[in-house]
């Protein structure tokens, strides 16, 4: 089984979408996943925003890690530094989108403040750190993890749309049945494991 640090970035990209989906195998970013998946359109916007933010944050955090944190020997502060980077990136992204693409801002921009506190972003960045990825791998992993999250929320939104009219027991309506559905989805995604050996 190859070590994390020498997987082909393209393989890594698809692996982080399917076999080690950050949501369904690591259960990160679940709160906004459950809250927003009620609506298909919002899920699309949020998924796109998460993908962009995780991808960009992985690239920037990798650079900061290699050229600031490791040379100064302050790995013990990487947690805080990553959080600051994520917050700043989200803020800047929001400003740029607001300025240059009002329509994109409308579908995606309003979710950006939500993402600052999305644990999937910090989780992905920390995975990138402990697995010693190179730059291309970090970027591939970042966008892959985001795309995996995006795929998962779109699937869940579609499923929730279908169960809307089904007779769910009263006590399970809303979040209850959603959590059970997420469990089934996670089990289904286990079927992908072994296709690409990353673990």
């Amino acid at each position, binding site marked *: 089984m190859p070590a994390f640090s020498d997987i082909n970035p393209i393989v890594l990209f698809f692996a982080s979408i399917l076999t080690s989906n950050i949501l369904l195998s690591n259960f990160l970013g679940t709160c906004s996943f459950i809250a927003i998946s009620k609506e298909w359109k919002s899920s699309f916007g949020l998924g796109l925003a998460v993908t962009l933010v995780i991808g960009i944050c992985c690239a920037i955090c990798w650079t*900061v890690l290699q050229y600031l944190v490791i040379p*100064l020997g*302050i790995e013990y502060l990487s947690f805080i530094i990553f959080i*600051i*980077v994520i917050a700043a990136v989200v803020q800047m992204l929001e400003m*740029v989108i607001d300025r240059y693409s*009002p329509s994109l801002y409308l579908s995606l921009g309003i979710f950006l403040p939500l993402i600052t506190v999305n644990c999937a972003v910090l989780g992905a960045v920390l995975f990138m750190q402990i697995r010693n990825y190179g730059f291309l791998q970090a970027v591939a992993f970042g966008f892959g993890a985001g795309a995996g999250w995006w795929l998962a929320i779109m699937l869940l939104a579609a499923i929730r749309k279908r169960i809307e009219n089904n007779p769910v027991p009263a006590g399970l309506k809303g979040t209850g049945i959603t959590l059970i559905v997420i469990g089934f989805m996670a089990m289904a995604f286990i079927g992908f494991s072994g296709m690409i050996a990353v673990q």
Partner: protein
Amino acid sequence: MHPILVGPLATAGFSAFLALVISLLDGKLNDYGTVNVTINGGKKKLPVRGGSPLLGTLAGEEIFLPSACGGRGSCGACKCVVTSDVGPYLPTETPYISAEEVSRKIRLACQIKVKKDIEIEIPESLFSIKRFEASVGRVRDLTYDIKEVRFDLRNPSSIDFMPGQYVQLAVPKYGDITESVQRAYSMSSVPGDPGNVELLVRLVPGGIATTWVHKFMKTGDVVQLIGPFGDFQVHDTPSTMVCVAGGSGMAPFKSMFNDMRARDSFPGKEIWFFFGARSTRDMFYLDELRKLEKEWPRFHFVPALSEPKPEEGWNGEIGLITNVLDSHLSAKISAGKPREGYLCGSPGMIDACIKVMTKNGIDPRDIFYDKFA
């Protein structure tokens, strides 16, 4: 340098660097230069600095759209017609805009940003809305939680309004409150006394403006009043006025009745005034209104307490104001004559009264109200 300092210093330096980048980016991206706001098809053309919400931009040009929440998107009062394209409706607007309003291109002025030339339509009457500098004059406790406050207008020194209209009180910063906020209050003074504005302010626990009025405001303090706003006023018809108020909802009615009495206006109108409170400690202006009822034949005053205590010796109506209103409408206030409803108070009270009134045959289109948002 001591190794333990490296980490905190590097983190702080890095954060400062990011903050700098963000503020530079903000200065660059949020600069839209000078844009033109065209009002009512060219009647007014204002060159303004772009990048801010329309509501604030207009206020900077001394044009005041009504706004009870001060631009936080929580009252939906600052509606105006925007004829040029400013992009699709925002999720923060949709809760306040009906499909019919969408077809008339009505937007929430506090939510849309002025980024390029924009054309809007606003009622002509808004041009007469002014910002008044006023000082706090006489303050009187009406009940344990309602104060009657008089403001002496200084600049401009007089106000022209219709009884029933309201002003926005801009409360200065105080204590932990670091921003000036605006709240809407109906005027209880009369147009015949244009140098003063009187408001009735009930203390709302945790309310920023009401807490200031009740706990911090002193005689002589200078505040800003913006107005007059609103279309809650006496309609010129022969119908009987059926008025219902609770708490500080008394304010617009005090203004209406005093003005009608002083000028003997709308001479054909009979007036019924229902005022509901919980117990005598919530009741005020009782003697004044009973005196007015004796002296003014077409005015009828019905105060009601929902929970009077036996030792209070209450001799008026007892029960919820809706029940008292119901029994009067069905028995005492002739259905043979057309009737109009005027309501001012909490949303719950107003909705309940509208039900009672329509049940008793008053056309919903003849029910006018001023809800505390």
